[in-house]
């Protein structure tokens, strides 16, 4: 068996605020093999982005505590690097695609300068070589006029094109792992589909392991083989996409699925929503965090924390699964 490209072991993120210590990511473990894409889904504030930032080591040092038993990229632990070591890893071994390319790209440099900067830092070589690599990256995400795009500033591109440029920048050094944080949320559906296809194509081609963060299960279904559902900082279900969509076992996963409006030829049944709302980190109770909103909760759910029930660290974290 091959070792996974990304292996996260017992990751916990806590912050200190107003004298209280809040757990935002609660002891999560998962791994992604090369060439696979795993979706991380959940509502706003459930800890998805915190997980990504903690993996990349981008959280501020003060006030935040990140604990883990190792975050391995191709077997190399990246959780205990100093700043200089981290800079040589980010962009080369593991890269991130951010939600808002408009803010993630630097407005005062051209697209070409920004992508070339990544190549110069991690690969080096002659000016011509760097430029060739940069143009090849723009070509690989589907731009036809690569020279024009390279010479353009971010504000001269549409939202969809900026996101493609962002993907080119993240993939230019062919990293082993890509973390994509809601890369298509701000785009309309036609642009979204095209960009997802481009991302999927590159990820398959480069055999990258991808952690794909989204609140949209429909999008996750399009490009991921596996999916993890997160609620209040904990993984509540981890399985393959097909199983989740055909038979979600955790009541929260089932609730999320029933919220998605579907396109059908006859008038669809109205969407159902999950009663109540996501508690904030200060309002969390003991036991299963979903139990106050859950129709299947029992006395045990309010006392002890259920664990993912499969032996390989997957399954549903529920005492009374569907």
């Amino acid at each position, binding site marked *: 068996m091959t070792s996974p490209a990304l292996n996260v072991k017992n990751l916990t993120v806590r912050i200190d605020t107003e004298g209280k210590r809040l757990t935002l990511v609660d002891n999560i473990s998962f791994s992604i093999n090369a060439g696979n894409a795993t979706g991380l889904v959940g509502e706003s504030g459930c800890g998805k982005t915190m997980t990504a930032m903690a993996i990349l080591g981008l959280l501020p040092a003060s006030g935040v505590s990140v604990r883990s038993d190792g975050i391995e990229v191709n077997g190399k632990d990246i959780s205990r690097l100093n700043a200089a070591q981290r800079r040589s890893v980010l962009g080369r071994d593991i890269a991130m695609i951010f939600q808002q390319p408009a803010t993630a790209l630097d407005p005062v440099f051209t697209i070409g300068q920004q992508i070339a900067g990544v190549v110069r830092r991690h690969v080096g070589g002659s000016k011509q070589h760097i430029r060739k690599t940069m143009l090849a990256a723009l070509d690989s995400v589907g731009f036809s006029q690569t020279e024009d795009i390279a010479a353009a500033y971010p504000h001269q591109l549409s939202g969809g094109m900026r996101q493609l440029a962002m993907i080119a920048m993240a993939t230019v050094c062919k990293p082993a792992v890509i973390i994509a944080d809601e890369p298509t949320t701000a785009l309309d559906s036609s642009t979204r589909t*095209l960009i997802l296809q481009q991302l999927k194509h590159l990820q398959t081609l480069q055999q990258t392991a991808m952690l794909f963060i989204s609140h949209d299960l429909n999008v996750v279904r399009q490009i991921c083989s596996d999916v993890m559902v997160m609620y209040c900082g904990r993984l509540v279900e981890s399985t393959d996409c097909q199983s989740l969509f055909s038979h979600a076992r955790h009541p929260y996963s089932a609730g999320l699925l029933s919220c998605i409006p579907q*396109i*059908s030829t006859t008038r669809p049944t109205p969407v159902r929503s999950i009663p109540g709302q996501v508690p904030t980190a200060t309002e969390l109770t003991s036991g299963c965090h979903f139990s106050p909103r859950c129709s299947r909760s029992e006395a045990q759910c309010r006392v002890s924390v259920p664990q993912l029930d499969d032996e390989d660290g997957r399954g549903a974290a529920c005492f009374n699964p569907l």
Partner: protein
Amino acid sequence: MNTLEQTSKIPLLEVRDLSLSFHQQEQVAVDHVSLNITQGSTLGLVGASGAGKSSIARAILQLVKPDSGEILFKGEEIHRMNPKELKTCRQRIQLVFQDPSASLSPRRTVEQTLLEPLQHFAIGDTSFQHEKALHILDTVGLDQGALRRYPHQFSSGQQQRIAIARALITDPELLIADEAVSSLDVSIQAQILQLIQMLQKDFGITFLFISHDLAVIRQIADDVAVMYQGQLLEQSSADRFFSEPAHPYSKTLLSFAQGKSPTHRPDDKRYLERSRRKAGDSSACLFAGFCPDKMPVCERVEPPMHDIQHKNQDGLESHCVKCHLYNEVNANDFRE
């Protein structure tokens, strides 16, 4: 919905041949668009970003001045109203925006936010206004403790409920929702969609619902209108649109929305490029460059709007499509 009986009725809102441009008529935002919304029904207005959907909403409320065309609300010409008449009219047409955290004033309590429209339109005395605010909060599913709080103390779903409450408090007949659920999480979106469905059913409110998300439109729209680069390309009942879309662009949109790439794609990338129409651009069909069914005529002549009517159990149902493919379909040639 669209039966003969209803087409003979005066629509609640009628937009006739509306055109709107920006930058000294350099950029065309809306190009000769006509729309009808029947009382009590919901029209879903769809299209990609920049298609002119929001411009139509703004023109209806006269927040921007259209170049030409007529806007009739219950037969009254909004575009000819003086400021006083317009004020009365706006009481009956309200708008809900996409991002509640931006459309609610951070410095006002929910009570101040809700009372303002009533004070502005001088509806009722203070005690009536207060009663009304409590009632409307209950309608959108918030308790009265919300009155004394500020927008930032609520979640995004609750904020959108407050924005909807503010729009409802003047008892409007038409609610324009401009991407009102697009920025919300799926679970919150589901709650707001349920609220809108309740308003449709229990209050009979007419909606112009603008969205780029066809799955959301499917949930709540009775009729669908498709816009592309300022033009209206298709308008039909939602059932007809989602089972048999007529315009090649509509078919493309639907397959994209279902996560499929259209079977024929001449140049995908060009979809991504921001296209703004300039005045005096070619007279061809705007979609011809991407159209899988393109014919020679499409590049020379702008297609007319055809009504390819359908028979249904109540009579005839109108289905308008702006495409040369339907040139041979005679208006009397009913399709089953």
